[in-house]
């Protein structure tokens, strides 16, 4: 029975992966845009460090490492528009097809997201490894193997947290047919609050403390801090715990929203 269950999930992953192969040019082009963004970040920070040695508590090498590891984690936790997928399923009535399938919609989305990210994830990692090779003199090596393992665990949970948040935003489509604005707003906010633009330590004290209550800070900022040895292993494990609690909360909220949303669902277009 569990084997049959696994097989179902694997078919979904494989289908999503094959679909992504069709759009691989899109992914590569997108990566080229990322290359320019990363190069500009290097150039900006290199210019800044010409007149100062420490910014937000980071020296030059730490900042370069933050950018490289931060982008790498960003690539590893991105789900590339799952909010749109969920919203479109609801808006077009495609959701009705999934309701009669022998697999829950949430499980289907999780399996599909694994297939969807494959090429993007692979190209992102290759690109970052290329940058890491170029900047190997600046990049700081991890403190120890255990911290790498904890960072890896945080990244995996971070991926699921980000995925759950995206699904949750997508489910808003049960109540409003156009969520493009909300989607863009939350994308920018999540990237900012996760430390995707710059280290969160740029925020004033109170705002920084508030941002640490949200799950987003544990997606990019926190694991990078742990990698750099700027937080202790105990704090790292506590961060992992906080992330797991957020994951459980998000799962429960998704369940509640899903059941409430289904009551409003009209199966438009079917």
């Amino acid at each position, binding site marked *: 029975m569990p084997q049959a269950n696994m097989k179902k999930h694997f078919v979904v992953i494989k289908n999503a992966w094959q679909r992504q192969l*069709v*759009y691989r*040019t*899109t*992914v*590569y*082009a*997108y990566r*080229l*845009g*990322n290359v*320019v*963004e990363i*190069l*500009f970040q290097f*150039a*900006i920070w*290199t*210019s*800044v460090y*010409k*007149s*100062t040695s420490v*910014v937000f508590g980071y020296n030059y090498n730490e900042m370069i490492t933050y950018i490289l590891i931060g982008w790498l984690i960003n690539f590893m936790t991105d789900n590339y528009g799952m909010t749109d997928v969920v919203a479109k399923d609801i808006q077009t009535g495609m959701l009705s097809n999934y309701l009669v399938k022998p697999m829950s919609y949430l499980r289907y989305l999780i399996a599909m997201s694994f297939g969807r990210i494959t090429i993007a994830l692979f190209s992102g990692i290759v690109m970052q490894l290329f940058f890491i090779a170029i900047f190997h003199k600046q990049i700081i090596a991890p403190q120890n193997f255990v911290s790498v393992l904890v960072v890896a665990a945080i990244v995996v949970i971070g991926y699921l947290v980000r995925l759950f948040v995206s699904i949750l935003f997508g489910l808003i489509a049960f109540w*409003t*047919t*156009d*969520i*493009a*604005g*909300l989607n*863009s*707003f939350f994308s*920018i*906010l999540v990237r*900012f609050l996760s430390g995707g*633009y*710059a280290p969160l330590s*740029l925020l004033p004290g109170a705002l920084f403390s508030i941002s640490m209550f949200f799950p987003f800070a544990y997606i990019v900022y926190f694991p990078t801090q742990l990698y750099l040895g700027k937080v202790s292993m105990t704090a790292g494990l506590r961060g992992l715990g906080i992330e797991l609690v957020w994951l459980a909360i998000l799962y429960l909220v998704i369940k509640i929203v899903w059941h409430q949303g289904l009551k409003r669902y009209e199966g438009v277009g079917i």
Partner: protein
Amino acid sequence: MVFNRYISIFLLRAKAGLMSRMLHPLNFLVMVVTVALQGFLTILFVKVIYNYTGSISGWTYNEAMMVVASFLLIEGLIWFTTAQFAGIRKNIKSGSFDHILIKPIKTLFLVSVWRVDVEDVMRVIVALFIFSQVVGSFHFTLLGWVVRTAFYVLTIICGYVISYSLALIVNSLFFWYTEANGINMMLESITRMGQYPTGILYGNAVKFILSFILPITFLGTVPATIFTDDNYVRAFLLSLMVATICFGVALKVFNAGLKAYSSASS
């Protein structure tokens, strides 16, 4: 007469764009806030960086903010008037491009104004806000202000033409390849870097690429130099030259795309 006709068509498209947005007023409001948030995050980033340094590659805080403002102004105008040529990609994908071709009006104009993103006026407002904050730091005579402002407007128009041309070239690829979304996103990512002074990049090759191959330096840095550099006439003439070349190339690509277009519905 013809000009009035085109203006009225643009206004009609703007009205249609606003009406479609107002179908979901909350979503529209969030879009406006999002556009403003993007602008203010850039301002915050620049502000925080300059807390640690007086200048970056020779650019002071106020000069760097002029770059940001110029970029937002051009970007806001492009999105407001053309929505990055959504008219080309949407209609080719949906098979309704034939309807555009048979209209008694220039096809290029119609695909340009097909979608008007009203919320992007907010970018222009953020740009004007930045101007109001930094303009006091530049000191010219009255004549100096008049001349530089005139050249600035002309250079912004050139920047608009360059941005328009780049978007037209990329979106014309949809005539051959309907899945050019990635290239469009790549262009957006790259042009977004025009909001920072391109002088921070090292290497003549990189500077050459960003000036003449992907001329994003004309979308922020060059317009700002009208107020920060005494060689502003040269900056304008260079902008004019690049804008003319870009527009010429874009027209060629678009016309070639039109020739290659095979109707999806017939």
